[in-house]
């Protein structure tokens, strides 16, 4: 029987398989650093975020300010450090919300009730045509600029997308003989879905979640720039971009750092999904087959 030790062994095999691939190595390193920096920023940043110095604005990188200062003289590195945790929270919440919504919709689409299955397909096709930005703008009317607007808008859009992409694989699993066999053993519809359908569509879900995570980082920057994302005063990479982009002609490097970070993270998240999918596939990973 698979016990905790076996599960841990399988996790170790997946991680070591990812580490053997260049893409996996890059993504694990970058994402590991991101999480570490976010945690450190909870108790330490080189400078207080509210600390400004009018005599040292637009400073170039130096020993005292590793990434220079912005137009108020605040330390750019400290703001990016603190911003990393906001972006991390947004990514985690968006992925969780989109995965939960997406799987709920997949369950409806593969249900044995014809009306529910057909109705949910039509509803998803209609709702998916609404742009995420429009949803965010509509949510911002009652909620104002907030992290919740980004999470709800992105999670909703990405959840619909996940459901549509995962549907063919889920239908294959739902109509398979092993699901029939599980039903013959007395498994209820929710149990069949959670125990037999979901694990068999995980490769698709993992890739979609990693794409959603990468897009959530981009969306945070875009929505914050539009004024409906992270509220003013809360550090985030999007906030750093939005405040510095106006001064790109005066000091381009303050745009460079948050822009570079966003790019590195989006690439890392996308590669993470691909590497994780390959490492989790028992057909592609012989070590996992034997575990």
């Amino acid at each position, binding site marked *: *029987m698979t016990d905790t030790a076996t599960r841990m062994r399988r996790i170790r095999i997946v991680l070591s398989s990812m580490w053997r691939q260049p893409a996996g190595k890059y993504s694990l390193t970058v994402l590991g650093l991101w999480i570490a920096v976010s945690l450190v920023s909870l108790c330490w940043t080189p400078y207080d975020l509210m600390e400004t110095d009018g005599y040292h604005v637009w400073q170039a990188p130096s020993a005292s300010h590793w990434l220079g200062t912005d137009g108020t003289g605040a330390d750019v590195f400290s703001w990016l450090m603190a911003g990393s945790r906001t972006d991390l929270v947004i990514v985690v919440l968006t992925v969780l919300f989109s995965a939960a919504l997406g799987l709920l919709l997949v369950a409806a689409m593969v249900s044995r009730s014809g009306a529910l299955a057909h109705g949910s397909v039509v509803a998803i096709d209609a709702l998916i045509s609404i742009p995420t930005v429009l949803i965010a703008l509509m949510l911002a009317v009652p909620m104002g600029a907030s992290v919740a607007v980004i999470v709800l808008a992105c999670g909703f859009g990405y959840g619909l997308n996940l459901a549509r992409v995962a549907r063919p694989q889920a239908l294959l699993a739902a109509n398979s003989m092993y699901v029939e*066999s599980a039903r013959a053993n007395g498994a209820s519809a929710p149990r069949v879905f959670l125990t037999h359908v979901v694990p068999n569509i995980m490769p698709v879900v993992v890739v979609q979640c990693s794409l959603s995570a990468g897009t959530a980082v981009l969306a945070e920057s875009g929505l914050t720039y539009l004024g409906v994302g992270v509220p003013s005063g809360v550090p985030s990479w999007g906030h750093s971009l939005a405040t510095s982009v106006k001064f790109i002609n005066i000091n381009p490097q303050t745009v460079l750092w948050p822009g570079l970070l966003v790019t590195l993270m989006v690439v890392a998240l996308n590669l993470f999904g691909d590497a994780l999918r390959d490492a989790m596939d028992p057909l592609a990973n012989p070590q996992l087959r034997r575990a």
Partner: protein
Amino acid sequence: MAVVTDRLGIAIAGRQIVKDVHLEIHDGQRVGLIGSSGSGKSMIARAMMGLLPPGTDVSGTIDLNGEQVVGMRDADLAALRGAAVGMVFQNPGISLNPLLTVGQQIALPLRLHYALSREELGQRVRAMMTRAGLPEELIDRRPHQLSGGQQQRVGIACALVASPRLIIADEPTTALDSLTQRQIVDLLVSLVDEAGASMLFITHDFSVLAHATQYCYVLDAGRIVEHGATAALLESPASETGERLVMAAQQLTLHRGKGDDDGRA
């Protein structure tokens, strides 16, 4: 478990697949249902389990020990499946979840119907594996790491682990070689008899049926055309379909080797 189907009819999208079927299985009896491909055998089996595809019209009655299956609620059917009625499927390679280990597959009916501790669950699974002729070291293997015969043994173990009173074996040997077919039939018969359960054995092969059942029904185009003791029916089939099936079994030397000690096939 005693089973009686009366005037059973099954229609899919307006097309009548099974018509007016009356079938009886007495407590502890092994009954065969034979017919050519597409005659509606599997549909009758699925109707007994309440596993027909959505949109199927079922008429008549299916009585399982006094409980009426036709029109039964999903929750009641789920309680019946696995615990009271077990099913062995045709192709073990695709009827086992590729991601679950042998132990997890066999434990599934127990988890669904009984509140057992982890230790009890492990003991019951290991005991069932032994009875099904599966070495204990296979417990953490996945289906693709097993041979066809081993996969079917796992399927049989899954069907029998929760001690159901009726086993429905839907062509359990079709996907196997002739030697493994014999082993699987022998195993199934011995386990069913040992448990004192009833069995409905579905096949299109009389030579397999001869070993597995005491009584059998011949199905043709959705209707029962003949029924009687299996040995008598093999000797002198009364219907044209029965005669064709018996002749086919006799001509197929594949199943008729010297190993068939009773010489009926």
